């Protein structure tokens, strides 16, 4: 590579990396969507169990959802706002604790956690609302 060609190569390399990052971001958002769908299913199942008065199933399902979330959270912390992740963790933990205490307020927290999780992929999508 000649010295004259260095600029051309750096220019190409930078835009190649940018392209790869854009593709990577697409897959990250897809993975977040899949996670959100999985957790939404679990939380809906827990809410349904609550409606039926099956506290044991609700506790088991909410606990499983929280464990799945906590495992995924480590990866998400690399690029998502830590405050948002913490808010979801807190909602899930509180919901689990309220179910364990057989409190009817647990349903509200399950819905809150579900909506926050569903909103996670949205904040990383390249959209006008996110840009401005």
């Amino acid at each position, binding site marked *: 590579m000649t010295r004259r060609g260095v*600029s051309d190569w750096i220019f190409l390399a930078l835009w190649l990396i940018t392209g790869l990052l854009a593709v990577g971001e697409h897959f990250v958002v897809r993975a977040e969507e899949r996670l959100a769908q999985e957790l939404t299913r679990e939380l809906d199942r827990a809410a349904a169990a609550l409606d039926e008065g099956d506290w044991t199933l609700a506790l088991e399902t909410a606990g499983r959802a929280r464990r799945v979330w906590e495992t995924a959270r480590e990866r998400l912390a690399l690029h998502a706002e830590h405050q948002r992740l913490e808010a979801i963790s807190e909602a899930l933990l509180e919901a689990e604790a309220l179910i364990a205490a057989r409190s009817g307020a647990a349903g509200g927290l399950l819905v809150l956690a579900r909506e926050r999780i569903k909103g996670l992929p949205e904040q990383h999508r390249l959209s006008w609302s996110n840009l401005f």
Partner: protein
Amino acid sequence: MLIIFVRVVILYLTLLLFLRILGKRQVTTLQPYELVTLILFADVAAISMADTGTPLMNGVMGVFALLVVSFTVSYVTLKSARARAVISGRPTVVVANGKIVEDAMLELRYNVNDLLEQLRIGGYPNIQDVEFAVLETNGQLSIVPKSQHRPVTPADLGVATQYEGLPTPLIVDGEVDHRNLARIGLDMDWLRGQIRTHGVDDTRAVLYAAIDTQGRFYCQPRDGAVQGRGQTGERAEA
């Protein structure tokens, strides 16, 4: 605290690497787009350094985005004169044939006091001594004095001068530059012989040694390296 320390180290190394890629001009005379990059670099990095609630990748990505944009702009200005004119502007003649160009001054919103100040800084307190003054795209004023006010050069006096070139450093801070030594066709035996004439046996005891294009060897031993001879910074013909 440790988190902040590690974040600062990571962002510092990232910025340093990116500034090296951007080139030397980034830290000396700045074009407008270069200045913007530097200002933003500091801000983007600082936010990620201090705010541990923000993912570190956000900071790295911000700095990377700046690198890509800045490099692209400088690349485009390198390849296209028209783009260069749009992005960096064009140099403007503010003094022509010893007269202030009023239109150019108005266009630039450059007042006479600023012009006189820059001329004084440039060593020309009297505008009558100036033939041309050009405001460059990086904000510096280039001054071309009238021929009778230009410093006298050997060429004006008809004096012949020899080629000087650049001296080649051979030892810097005790470290021998083997590449330079090989480039000028010399070896370690020659170098050791030279430093011995300056009272030093070990190259590590030399602070700086160089040879110029006339073959004159310069050697400055470290303080205290030469016992009872007191010779520093001496030249010897190679």
